[in-house]
């Protein structure tokens, strides 16, 4: 058989694992090590950015607080947003989860360009350090969006901000290219596009956005950098520049960037739900197709961030309607996930709880997105805490719930140890309660008239702000539990084995943690990955594992 011939040819191609600490763990070209590096670095930055959030909330405890000076406050919220977007979320969902899981899922031994992958990662820590170093010279103060002209007047750290984001942008672009080539060219034989796990579909759509959109941001940032350092007037209207130009370029990237955050989370949810409901994903093709539809539409809606900014009024209409259209593929996903729960045998693992919680909190963020998309309503809501509530429901209630589900789901694959489910359940419930108590009241504050990015507010808003602040401390405790759980797992966690969840995608068919070259023989794929109760659709897996797998996951007489 042709497949068999291909196997033996591939089998001869295994390189030995590099020896020595530096080549193995520091400048590694192994996608799994690089993925772990991304996760660890991203989580360190997450802790820093999360502490910045608590500084913001502490300042807002009182209507006229003097906890931070106006300069410090502006710096803190700008760095919170910037770090959470570029140093935490994007690296974790693409560089982290994408690197560790995606090649395993498609039956590849590594990504297409391992050295490029290493280069991508090694741009990330310097970018983060450069960004946080701006605190030493005066952190940027104009928010994560850094609209000129005010960002042209900003403190010296704004220039470092430009450089840091350009660096991480180059890293994202390279990762996007790398993942696209990997997914298109390196799937195991028999893995057609419609047999790919949905996480891989999500990574494919994300990689395309990463590769195509990030360059727009890099161009905008380069211009801002040049204007700040050399005075070439791209954006300063007093010298003939256009401040709106920045906004168009910025949002041409930053709206698709929202889908860079959320699509991988969609992918994670699409893996966790079938595994713990013991059911095929409902409407596989519609979920896969809607990821692509979202990615495409995502490029055509950027100006909905600019309804109040100044553009030809008629131009608001196409952007409004296209924005509303995104609700349709997103809705299809939500219905499909709910239908996946229906008729399942649902295991209440922590990963599953986060996945089901995601359905509720993300829907909230999606619906307020439609409310913001309608131009007349946006004229009231824009620039207020309503917007802050909306995007925190999307990024926290969506992406981060997905990330937490992913961490609990794949932790045993990476470490070969189980996390503590009791701590996990506590973390889930604290996250749901305090997450909603933190972000829901922000809707009301915004509608009642509280603008974003202010260190002081009128005293009527004090009660809600205090509720939000106290809840945000509770949310920190929930995250603390996760880190405690990780430490617990290293010390006391039970050995997980190759497939603790009885999942069916390829990464669970090899040992935990996976060997250096993942698959001794590249398996061939016979059908899609979600048919519980059927024999595994893989041939040519490492034989011993294949035997144990088929005994543990295929119920007797279920076929």
């Amino acid at each position, binding site marked *: 058989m042709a497949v068999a011939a291909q196997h033996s040819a591939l089998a001869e191609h295994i390189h030995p694992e590099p020896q020595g600490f530096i080549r193995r763990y520091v400048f590694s070209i192994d996608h799994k090590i690089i993925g772990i590096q991304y996760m660890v670095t991203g989580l360190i930055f997450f802790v820093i950015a999360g502490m910045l959030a608590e500084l913001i909330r502490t300042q807002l405890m009182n209507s006229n607080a003097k906890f931070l000076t106006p300069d410090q406050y502006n710096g803190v919220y700008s760095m919170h947003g910037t770090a959470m977007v570029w140093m935490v979320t994007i690296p974790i969902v693409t560089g982290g989860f994408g690197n560790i899981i995606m090649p395993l899922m498609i039956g590849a031994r590594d990504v297409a360009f391992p050295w490029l992958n290493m280069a991508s990662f090694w741009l990330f820590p310097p970018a983060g350090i450069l960004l946080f170093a701006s605190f030493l010279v005066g952190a940027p103060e104009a928010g994560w969006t850094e609209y000129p002209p005010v960002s042209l007047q900003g403190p010296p750290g704004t220039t470092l901000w430009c450089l840091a984001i350009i660096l991480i942008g180059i890293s994202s672009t390279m990762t996007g290219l790398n993942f696209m080539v990997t997914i298109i060219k390196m799937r195991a034989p028999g893995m057609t596009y419609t047999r790919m796990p949905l996480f891989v579909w999500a990574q494919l759509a994300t990689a395309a956005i990463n590769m195509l959109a990030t360059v727009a941001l890099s161009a905008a940032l380069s211009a801002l950098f040049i204007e700040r350092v050399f005075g070439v007037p791209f954006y300063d209207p007093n010298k003939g520049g256009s401040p709106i130009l920045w906004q168009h370029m910025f949002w041409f990237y930053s709206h698709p960037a929202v889908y860079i955050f959320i699509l991988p989370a969609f992918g994670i949810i699409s893996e966790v739900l079938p595994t713990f409901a013991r059911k095929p994903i409902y*409407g596989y093709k519609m979920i896969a197709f809607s990821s692509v539809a979202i990615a495409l539409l995502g490029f055509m809606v950027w100006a909905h961030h600019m309804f109040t900014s100044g553009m030809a009024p008629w131009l608001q209409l196409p952007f409004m309607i296209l924005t509303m259209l995104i609700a349709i593929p997103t809705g299809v996903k939500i219905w499909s996930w709910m239908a996946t729960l229906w008729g399942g045998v649902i295991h209440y693992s922590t990963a599953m709880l986060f996945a089901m919680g995601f359905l509720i909190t993300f829907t909230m963020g999606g619906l307020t997105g439609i409310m913001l998309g309608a131009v007349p309503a946006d004229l009231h809501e824009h620039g207020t805490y309503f917007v802050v509530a909306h995007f925190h429901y999307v990024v926290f209630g969506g992406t981060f719930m997905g990330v937490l589900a992913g961490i609990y789901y794949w932790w045993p694959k990476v470490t070969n140890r189980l996390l503590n489910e009791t701590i996990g359940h506590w973390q889930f419930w604290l996250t749901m309660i305090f997450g909603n108590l933190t972000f829901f009241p922000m809707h009301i504050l915004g509608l009642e008239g509280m603008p974003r990015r202010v260190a002081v507010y009128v005293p009527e808003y004090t009660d809600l702000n205090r509720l939000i602040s106290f809840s945000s401390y509770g949310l920190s405790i929930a995250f603390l539990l996760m880190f405690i759980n990780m430490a617990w797992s290293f010390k006391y966690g039970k050995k997980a084995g190759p497939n603790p969840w009885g999942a069916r995608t390829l990464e669970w068919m090899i040992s935990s943690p996976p060997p250096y070259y993942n698959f001794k023989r590249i398996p061939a794929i016979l059908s899609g990955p979600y048919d519980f109760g059927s024999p595994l659709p893989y041939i040519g897996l490492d034989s011993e594992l294949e035997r144990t797998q088929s005994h543990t996951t295929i119920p007797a007489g279920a076929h």
Partner: protein
Amino acid sequence: MAHDKPEAQTGQYSNLGPYFWTFTAFLAVFTIIAIVWFVQQDLGTWLPEAAVPADEIDALFKFMGVFVILIFNIVAGYTIYFAIAFRRKKDMPPDAIGVQTHGNAKLEFWWTALPTVLIIILAIYSVQIWRGLQEAQGDVLTMEAIGHQFAFQFRYPRLGQPVANDMHVPVGTPVTLHVTSVDVIHSFWVPEVRLKADMVPGLIQTLRFTPTKVGTYRIICTEYCGRNHGDMVATLHIDNQQDFGRWFAGQAQAQHLASVAPLDLNKGQAQAGQALFGQKCSACHSVGPFDQKIVGPGLGKLLSDTAHPKLVDGTDPTPANIAKILQNGFQGPLGVMPNAQANAISNLDIANLDAYLVSLSGQK
């Protein structure tokens, strides 16, 4: 579609789950109550509607709110229901599996088509309201709002000088407001009018509204514009016609008197200057030493600072030279100080401010 065989393993309940219709009835009642409650809310009690498009924008918000409640309740309700109804039971074998179905073309068609219809309805309704916002009314008050770091100014027809911080409009007269900025991007927002437009330097945007409710409302800057962005607030006074006429005539007269008064520094009063400093200067200047900068330097020791013996324009610190800077404005490294005209300060104001600044140095 669903195979029959795994059904035996998933349990003895029906396809939809135990008590499905009971739950659905409960959820429907709950959702209807929530929607009725929401529709009956007068949003004006949460935040007054002080001008004409506010009621239409609230109506649109309410319309969307109904669908948000409906869809959210469906998603959250059935997610929780399925999670409970289809939980793994203790007596199930460890290898129990769910219903092995991959989808249902009919169902998937409807759950794509129905939201599409909703979106189309919402889009049509939004476009209708949007068109109302663009239409110019008949007999209107056309005026301008100008953003500064960190204050608002308002220009009226037949009033030579702009008015700072207080915007007066007569109730019932449609207002066409052009907004722009002299330095960075600001935003003009009156929550009670439900309208907002960014004030962009080099660009003029237009807001149209008809005030309907007499009162005072906050004008809030909603685009980060620098260190004191949070303090950038002005007041919108919706006056009845007589009050507006009185105010307008008073402004016109005051401006006339101020414009014909020659600059006489001896007439300055430090106390009046102090009040004015709070309105016009304190957003950018402290009354501390030179290095206590906000945007511009601290002005507490203008005449007696040995470390900075000259004024920023290089001249000696005399009252006359201070007055000159107040009159002409100054371009500093961090921002622009507007000149007397842009800052809407009269010759008398300059004399008062001058007297105040000199008195500060004298105390030290």
